[in-house]
């Protein structure tokens, strides 16, 4: 038995909860973080989000770009000692494609038509169109020898109490609010220095910050801004406000159909644009988010390869005058002197803005937006509800405006797909529909030339920005911290990004104890 001191144990606290240990039914981001360590995908990301070998040691595509051949690492064993083979890959992909399980991963697999295993170490995947995101696929490969034992109908609720993967860390134990993984000495790649990672979920962020300061944990995710200031003063801790993929937006109901329950005035682009002009996004960033974020514009974060930055002419930065001019010119004036503009028919510019009650920043933002819009004669009534109720409103199209956020990933497909006509009734919350946008969406999926693909994605962002179904307020940061008195070797990913929860395992593999 080893004593406690000899082990390099690193504890990561996060304010997000874990759900199930079953990758087929889990949907919590916090859970993915350790799945990433326990299970390997075929291809991983490096710290620059370039594809690097995972279970596939190299890969190749055919001339017509419709067939992919993956050569697998040799001698890989599952944590239980069983050998890993190409059949496991085939099994995992087919299971997810057939059953729809593994919600978070299965859409990476769209376009795959056939999987062949010519030998134990080769997987050949055929697609029906050139699959642009083939290498941006983080689907974990699961052990066939274990899953095939479980009846199909029970796969979803399978507890997976003892996850078996091929990853660099093995599952060790699980407590009420923590999961512990220990290093896999038999791993086919390099063995990291940290012997075990403990992922702890906290209900209360303050407790987490306290624990960090007390040294009970070594790293923390999702701290709040007050703690940021506090931890800045703590020399033992390295705290960062890292950029994260995703944004917070005001969704505007622009559903043109008759059954829309939103205020019809919002169907008018001019009004949506005027609203954006009147919102002091910088102040929201500064006050509601305490400066931890950047003013938002388009669907993809700045710094991302695919980000489109609106031109000076396109940009609608905060300007009350411009907003007033725009409204005046479209014929909305305050004719009865009550401080609220009316349409020519006398319809007041009065909208409901729904925020999710337990999201403090968003509630604050909502209140600030209401105050901003009042300045230009648009009356906003703040309403709060919980996410479930808001979801109902969104699905039913019975709202005017709401505040919510999206997280995104490396591949632009997912986040741009949200505004396609296909997704109306699903993720397309503002009921936005634009033919050109839809067309571009399909094209970019099949474009393997990066530059060309970026052009398309840019145009999509341009359209979305011009039409303003989403008024993107902020790209918010994630505040994270690590006990730098004890650990070294970690870095922000990408350069202005975060330590953890950034889709790569770079830091987990490179953290070292301080000598």
């Amino acid at each position: 038995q080893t004593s406690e001191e000899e082990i390099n144990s690193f504890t990561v606290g996060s304010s997000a909860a874990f759900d199930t240990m079953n990758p087929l039914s889990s949907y919590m981001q916090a859970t993915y973080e350790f799945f990433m360590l326990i299970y390997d995908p075929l291809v991983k990301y490096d710290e620059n989000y370039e594809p690097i070998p995972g279970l596939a040691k190299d890969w190749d595509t055919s001339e017509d770009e419709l067939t992919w051949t993956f050569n697998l690492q040799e001698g890989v064993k599952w944590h239980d000692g069983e050998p890993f083979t190409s059949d496991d890959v085939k099994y995992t992909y087919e299971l997810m494609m057939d059953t729809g399980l593994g919600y978070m991963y299965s859409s990476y697999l769209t376009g795959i038509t056939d999987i062949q295993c010519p030998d134990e170490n080769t997987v050949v995947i055929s697609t029906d169109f050139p699959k642009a995101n083939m290498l941006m696929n983080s689907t974990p490969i699961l052990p066939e020898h274990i899953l095939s034992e479980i009846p199909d109908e029970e796969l979803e609720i399978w507890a997976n109490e003892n996850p078996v993967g091929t990853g660099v860390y093995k599952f060790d134990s699980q407590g009420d609010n923590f999961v512990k993984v220990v290093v896999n000495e038999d791993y086919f790649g390099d063995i990291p220095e940290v012997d075990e990672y403990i992922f702890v979920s906290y209900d209360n962020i303050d407790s987490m910050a306290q624990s960090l300061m007390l040294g009970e944990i070594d790293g923390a995710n999702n701290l709040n801004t007050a703690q940021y200031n506090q931890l800045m003063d703590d020399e033992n801790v390295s705290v960062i406000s890292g950029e994260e993929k995703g944004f917070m937006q005001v969704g505007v109901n622009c559903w043109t159909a008759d059954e829309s329950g939103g205020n019809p005035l919002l169907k008018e682009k001019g009004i949506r644009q005027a609203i954006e002009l009147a919102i002091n996004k910088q102040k929201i960033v500064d006050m509601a988010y305490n400066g931890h974020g950047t003013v938002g514009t388009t669907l993809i974060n700045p710094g991302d390869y695919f980000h489109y930055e609106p031109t000076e002419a396109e940009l609608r930065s905060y300007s009350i005058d411009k907003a007033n001019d725009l409204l005046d010119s479209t014929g909305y004036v305050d004719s009865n002197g009550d401080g609220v503009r009316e349409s020519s028919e006398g319809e007041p510019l009065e909208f409901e803005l729904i925020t999710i009650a337990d999201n403090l920043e968003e509630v604050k933002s909502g209140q600030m937006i209401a105050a901003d819009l009042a300045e230009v004669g648009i009356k906003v009534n703040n309403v709060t509800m919980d996410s479930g109720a808001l979801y109902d409103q969104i699905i039913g199209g019975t709202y005017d405006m709401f505040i919510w956020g999206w997280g995104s990933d490396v591949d632009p497909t997912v986040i741009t797909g949200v505004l396609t006509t296909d997704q109306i009734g699903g993720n397309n919350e503002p009921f936005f529909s634009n033919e050109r946008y839809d067309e571009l969406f399909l094209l970019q999926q099949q474009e393997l030339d990066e530059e060309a693909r970026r052009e398309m994605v840019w145009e999509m962002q341009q359209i979305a920005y011009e039409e303003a179904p989403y008024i993107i307020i902020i790209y918010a940061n994630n505040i994270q911290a690590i006990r730098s008195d004890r650990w070294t070797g970690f870095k922000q990913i990408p350069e202005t990004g975060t330590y953890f929860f950034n889709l790569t395992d770079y830091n987990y593999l490179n953290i070292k104890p301080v000598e």
Partner: protein
Amino acid sequence: MKWILRIKKMKEFGKAVAKNKMALTGAVILGVFILVAIFGPILVPFSTMEFGAVEDMLQPPSGKYLLGTDDMGRDILANLIHGARISLLIGAVATLISMFIGTLVGILAGYFGKGLDNVLMRFTDFFLVIPWLPLMMVLAAILGTSLWNIIFVIGITGWAGTARVVRAQTMSIKERQFVERTVSIGAGNLHIMLRHILPNVFPLVFANTVLVAAVAIVSETTLSFLGLGDPTMASWGMMLHYAFEGGATAAGAYWYYLPPGICVVLVVLSFTLLGYAFDEILNPKLRGR
């Protein structure tokens, strides 16, 4: 003549309250808060409630801001004063709802007895036994987090205790001879309930009111704290919610998380003191020397 008597009675009660140290303390504290709730917002201009400048965020107490500012740069004192109105309004209206339901159910069950009593009492038992906070949480989640929903939720979950005591009292009053005497002169049920039962259960309802009000205010605070309050209404509970969620404890912003809590404690304490004292005044056994 009659109203002179009524005033006289109220004066007597007032005297009893004034003599009872607990009641007096409670009445004074509550009185101050009620005055603040009524006149405070007039004295403190609302502009101080609006978001301040970025450099005003979470400032400690100073000459400019007596109790400092919150994380939105608002004056905490102004917030507190404004919150007094909301918290007390919630307390008052929710209590009224509770009292109305409780008294009605109690009197009906106690007076008519038998089947109606059984049905009403099973119903009351249910509300009495069911843990109030989870029930409120679920109801608040169902109805959504608006001020009136919160009031409604607190109101309809708080009446069971009152119904029980009113029922017991009604049953004992019903057996009193003056009720039987009234029956014997040919009076109907409504007459008896209004003229004889109600006035006699009233002191009890009154003493209960203050206790229910205390519970109502704590309930509001707790619901708000758990994120089930109305975030657009800056009640004390909501202030605490913002304070704790916004990391006021980590930031050491004691001026943010202490005052609303102290206000809640004081108001609840004043109600508790009054309730306890009323109990003593109305229950001769407990009466002091």
